[in-house]
């Protein structure tokens, strides 16, 4: 370790074997455990069958793991250079969705070429973190709270948020917002900005509300509280609450969830997989899963704290924020705390793009961890390249 530290000062390159040793293996074990929960849940959803979801989930996890290793073991400086271009590409693709996106289920989120299709917003989640981290790596520490210096990252956040809202994809927009603002906060931007923003929203919101038409207000109210319309949009959330609530303390037993297996639950292999899991495993199972996620988050925070470079710190904690936002919004959604916005539960929900994105994101966390002792001088990189 000592040698690594000394060498890192002079030469940023670290040997592969040392990198592998420096990986946070317990963390990998933790996310594997979370994924296995997902495999079990998908096995149950399919009525006790590996097909069609559980086996593919495993395959995707393995592909994701490969990507994770590639990202984790790659050169951190390379990513510093790639951050802005990647952000620009992601932004362009998000814009493309606006123009040639494939519509599915009332929202346009996908870009497709023939069989293959993916969501640019997933790339943006990573690109946004990298870009903001890259920005603060370059920004002189003394200028962090300067008004002019706050504007560029705000723009970096605002543009994808607006594009996501346009799709419309409220969940992703919220996620961009949470991750972006969290990063600004961690980067050291003065409290004053956050307080001002908070006060501003409090002041403006009633005026916006008053200017809305009755039907718009009604739509928003129904969105916030779906139980106002129990046969329509409230049906899914009501069924989800019934499923979770009826699970009780110990649950109905593996593969015994009546709400899920009798099809009262919608999308139980994707967005509502937590519901099915807690119906079958009860409060204990749900709490264990949440604790696993919390452990992963604390691991990430710990790893971020140990990083020497601003970039690594912010990348790691940004990915952590992203994971947190996913888990929190999804669980809060299925338990009826927040409106249904359609975000999957990372590593557990079935879905290729979200799995790969999450694994790549975690790859960046590990990359930061591997390069924790690397110091990157501010002068090494220009404002853009």
């Amino acid at each position: 370790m000592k040698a690594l530290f000394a060498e890192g000062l002079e030469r940023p390159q670290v040997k592969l074997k040392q990198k592998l040793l420096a990986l946070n293996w317990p963390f990998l074990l933790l996310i594997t455990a979370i994924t296995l929960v997902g495999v079990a849940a998908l096995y149950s959803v399919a009525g006790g069958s590996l097909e069609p979801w559980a086996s593919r989930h495993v395959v995707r996890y393995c592909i994701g793991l490969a990507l994770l290793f590639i990202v984790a073991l790659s050169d951190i400086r390379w990513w510093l250079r790639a951050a802005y271009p990647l952000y620009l590409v992601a932004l362009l693709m998000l814009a493309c969705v606006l123009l040639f996106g494939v519509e599915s289920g009332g929202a346009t989120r996908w870009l497709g070429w023939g069989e293959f299709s993916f969501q640019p917003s997933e790339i943006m989640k990573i690109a946004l973190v990298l870009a903001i981290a890259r920005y603060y790596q370059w920004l002189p520490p003394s200028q962090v709270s300067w008004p002019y210096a706050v504007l560029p990252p705000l723009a970096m956040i605002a543009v994808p948020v607006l594009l996501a809202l346009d799709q419309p994809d409220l969940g992703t927009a919220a996620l961009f917002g949470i991750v972006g603002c969290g990063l600004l906060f961690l980067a050291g931007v003065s409290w004053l900005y956050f307080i001002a923003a908070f006060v501003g929203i409090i002041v403006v919101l009633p005026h916006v509300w008053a200017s809305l038409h009755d039907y718009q207000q009604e739509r928003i109210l129904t969105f916030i509280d779906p139980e106002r319309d129990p046969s329509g949009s409230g049906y899914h959330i009501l069924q989800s609450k019934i499923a979770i609530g009826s699970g009780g303390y110990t649950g109905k037993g593996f593969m015994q969830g009546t709400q899920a297996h009798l099809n009262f639950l919608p999308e139980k292999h994707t967005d509502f997989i937590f519901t099915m899991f807690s119906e079958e495993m009860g409060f204990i199972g749900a709490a264990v899963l949440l604790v696993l996620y919390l452990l992963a988050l604390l691991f990430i925070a710990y790893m971020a704290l140990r990083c020497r470079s601003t970039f690594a710190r912010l990348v790691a904690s940004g990915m952590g924020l992203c994971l947190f936002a996913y888990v929190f919004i999804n669980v809060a959604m299925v338990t009826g705390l927040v409106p249904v916005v359609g975000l999957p539960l990372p590593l557990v929900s079935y879905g290729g793009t979200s799995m790969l994105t999450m694994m790549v994101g975690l790859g960046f966390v590990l990359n930061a961890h591997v390069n924790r002792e690397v110091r990157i001088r501010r002068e090494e990189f220009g404002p853009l390249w």
Partner: protein
Amino acid sequence: MKPRDYALRLRNRFSRRAVLIGAAQTGLFGLLLWRLHRLQILESSEYQLLSDDNRMTRHLVAPARGTIYDRFGRTVAVDRENFRIVVIPAFCDDLAATLDAISEIVPVSASEKDRVMRAARRQSGYFPVLVTEGLTWRQFALLSVLAPQLKGVRTDRATYRRYARSRSMAHVVGYVGLAAKEEVDEHPLMRVPGFRTGKAGIEKGLDPELRGQPGTISYEVDAHGRVVRELGATASVRGKDFALTIDQELQEIAHKRLQDLRVASVVVLDVVTGGILVMASFPSFDPNEVSFKIDAERWTELARNVDHPLENRALRGVYPPGSTFKVVTALAGLEAGVITPRETMHCPGGYPFGRHFFRCWKRHGSVYLHEAIKQSCDVYFYETVKRVGVDRLAVMSRKLGLGQIHDIGLAGQKQAIIPDTKWKKKVLGQPWYPGETISCGIGQGYVSSTPLQLAVATARIATGRMVRPRLIAPSEAEPEFPVLDIDPTHLELVRAGMVGVVNEKGGTAVRSVLTIPNVQMAGKTGTSQVISAKNRGFLKGWEGETHALFIAYAPVGAPRYAAACVVEHGGGGSRAAAPVVRDVMTEVLLRDPAIKMALIASNQEAPKAAKAKGRTR
């Protein structure tokens, strides 16, 4: 300050804020846990109910209806197995083809096919539709074997109601029918396809007890309403069985006896227990036909028939009692002290009152009470009722059970009318005119009664006790009826008159004397007019004929049975009604154990003579 310090300060700030965010995240996860705790632990039972509500549907299973027996335990009405075919349209590849396949084994009419197709379109495809019912065992067995090949076809067993001696028992037992629209909301059981409730007679009167408690089958269903599996069942509770006081055999005999007449009814009571042995009404109908698979045409024919075969005349036929009412007038006079048994009155063939001349059917000359009853002299009772007054007559009538509904478990009884001044004021809003009292004395005018009421009055006169009729055999011995508040000597005088009617020379019903040795019947004839001043000229032919009535009890020494018979438009009571009562009463008496013993004893003394006499009608 050096920039280096800024970097350090920023790193420290990052550490502080990272801890802050970590704490916030932990806090928000705590919020999620709190939420889960609330849903899964605090409110769990509530959600478990909702979840069960979601996944379970309960189907009601119709209970078997209680069996009805006669007094000797012979079956009157019983639930029989009904083999049915139902289809579940969702499981049929081609419903029309399936129905064609069924009709090769069981005839299914085109209209039935049409009904099935329409029902299948209207409701969920998983809801069974009845194709046809009442299959024979052969058809049922054949279809049950073939059912696995015919997709979506199920055979099932329900019940239908079977009535024994159905035509004679029809009015007493009533019939069942599909629940009416108003009933459907009353109990979910009514929605069970093919469920039938009591519509008339005992079936209706005791419907709540006969019906029983429905059982349930719980199914697990998915979000689309498809049945996934059966979860469990609770058995239905059979309805209560009842034993009637009716003797089915006697009822059948009485019914046969009435068949020669157009419209008639007869009631026979056991005066000791109050049990109704016979309650026959003619014309009748077949409850088997009415309860099961009756078509609309046949039903209208029954309901609109001029002779109203659906009506139970023993309870719902309201007739002026005519001369049979004279026994009541006599008792009222004696009790009021306005006449004495030895007082004679002169009958010149009519009775002048005001400007009106009330006719008697014969010039009786000088009559006293016994003769007046025996020969049914109108003038004697015109005078008696004038002295008694209508109010005291009404009191006596009610004491004898006239003009009131006797609760025997049958709905739709008529109360009939026993008039008094108060009644007229209330109902017609007019004062009572003295002239109206006169015709009341001979059971005409406003006075009316039903055959059951007449039988009860006869039983009360015969026993001097407050006999209450019943149709349901009591489960335990009931106390004797209380003694009536009437002087026994007065009752004895009236009874003697009634004995005279049948058994003494000059009595109006001497032709109907019993032929059983040592057993006598007492009675009173009645011939009531249907033509009044108002409808004179409108009623012609049969409809203009007088009603024939006869009330009787036997044996004379120790009354056991009381009877009343009304033959609508049958002419004279002695000619039309008394023979019916004689014949029915003979059959009743021959079945009485005490009289049987006496008969056997006398047969042993004079076998040949008794045989010749005892079997004659």
